[in-house]
């Protein structure tokens, strides 16, 4: 019968590797989520335009939605990164002591930057489609009302459509953010030292494969559970929800100074 032997994990160097793995997974997620969101809003907005802009948005969505993320990461790492200006590559290759997280996780590396970019682009096209669904749920009358008030197209999007799209689509959006976190495991293939990469390192170091991947799985689970709850809590609130009502009561008390 198989006997678990956890000793191979909580001794150095394995423990340090796992810690670095968790920090890297968190860092890549924290960096890629906002980037993906910005890209998604741009793609969704272009998707609403007519003509060439619309078709290029559709092309980008279809390209990144229908090809494997692993292939995309390898493409960005080998082809994309190589195409960067030489001065950028030289700068990235330099040492950046200010950009190192404890316990020694460097952030300005080709692996980290490519992982953030690749995950963000891949996630953005899915987010863009969720946002578009959220946008189409907003009644057209509100767009007319905003145009009649003198809002420009971009301001209608900013102040009327997007807030409601995010509200309507927040649950599926959170699902995509969780996917991003889990898919960061694929960045182990380009050498990013995240959780999966570190579990494999431990496996090749002391052959404790089952224990290492069991711990890795639990770490993803914990991060995912925490992240999902945090994003729901931070996310837009339904009009009239309890937390929003409390915030508004506070606003009334303070006479709106917080605005």
């Amino acid at each position, binding site marked *: 019968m198989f006997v678990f032997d956890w000793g191979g994990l909580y001794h150095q160097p394995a423990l340090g590797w796992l810690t670095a793995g968790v920090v890297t997974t968190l860092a890549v997620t924290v960096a890629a989520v906002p980037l993906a969101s910005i890209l998604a809003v741009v793609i969704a907005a272009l998707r609403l335009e007519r003509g060439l802009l619309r078709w290029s948005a559709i092309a980008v969505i279809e390209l990144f939605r229908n090809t494997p993320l692993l292939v995309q990461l390898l493409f960005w790492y080998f082809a994309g990164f190589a195409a960067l200006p030489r001065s950028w590559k030289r700068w990235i290759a330099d040492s950046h002591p200010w950009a190192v997280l404890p316990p020694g996780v460097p952030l300005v590396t080709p692996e980290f930057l490519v992982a953030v970019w690749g995950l963000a682009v891949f996630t953005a096209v899915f987010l863009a489609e969720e946002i578009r669904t959220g946008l189409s749920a907003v009644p057209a009358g*509100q767009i*007319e*009302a905003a145009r009649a008030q*003198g809002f420009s197209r971009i301001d209608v999007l900013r102040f009327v459509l997007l807030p*409601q799209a995010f509200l309507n689509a927040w649950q599926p959006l959170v699902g995509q953010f969780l996917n991003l976190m889990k898919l960061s495991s694929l960045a182990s293939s380009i050498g990013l030292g995240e959780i999966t990469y570190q579990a494999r390192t431990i496996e090749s170091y002391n052959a404790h494969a089952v224990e290492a991947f069991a711990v890795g799985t639990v770490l993803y689970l914990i991060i995912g559970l925490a992240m999902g709850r945090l994003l729901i809590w931070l996310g837009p609130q339904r009009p009239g929800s309890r937390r929003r009502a409390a915030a*508004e009561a506070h606003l009334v008390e303070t006479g709106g100074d917080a605005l």
Partner: protein
Amino acid sequence: MVPVENAAPKIEFRGVAKRHGAVQAIRGVDLTIRSGEVVVICGPSGSGKSTLIRLINGLETISDGEILVDGALVSSLRGKALRSLRTRIGFVFQQFNLYAHLTAEENVSLALRRITGLTPAAARDRALGLLDRVGLADKPASFPHQLSGGQQQRVAIARALAMNPDILLFDEPTSALDPEMIGEVLGVMREVARSGITMIVVTHEMGFARQLADRIVFLDEGRVLEEASPEQFFSAPVHERTRRFLSQIRSPLHTTDG
């Protein structure tokens, strides 16, 4: 105050036509609306009433002819100039069209903050004042879905007034309301009409037309069939089509053509 009949032209329609594909919604309308005038537009459904007022602020584009607001050709305005015209024209919709994610106060103050650039506190003050004016001083924090139809339409009127427009357009403002809520909205419209603002109201509320309109325009199949003072319109309509419309509105079960 200058008597309405001597006031300067505010809105002029000159040979206005509008086609929706093959459908001819407006066929050659000439109409001048003077500053401070309250004009009611009525007519059978499909006669082009809504289209006519939607052309004024460029919500729809004109196919032929021209519309001038304060002497400026609406169809020549683009981008910023068109948006600036729209801030001077309040529009109230049949379906209210309030921003669902914003409270009543935020619905009214959004344009003040984002277009006029008022500080949040100043915009809020003005919004609360307008909500008070439409009788909703106790509802600033309510969301549209928490308000009745009549209350939503009053918020919409406050929103239309927010930018201090000199023209207000109403597109069947009471048609989507339950009967017991029509009165509260008409009450607010009456108060606004007396403030001297130029108002064009598409409505079937003949009581409102009789009391407050300076002029009634009867539209049929995209043409102005009759244009008269309320007294004349109700007591001595010229056209057979107008008489039939009026008798149908007065007693809907009575039909003259059947």
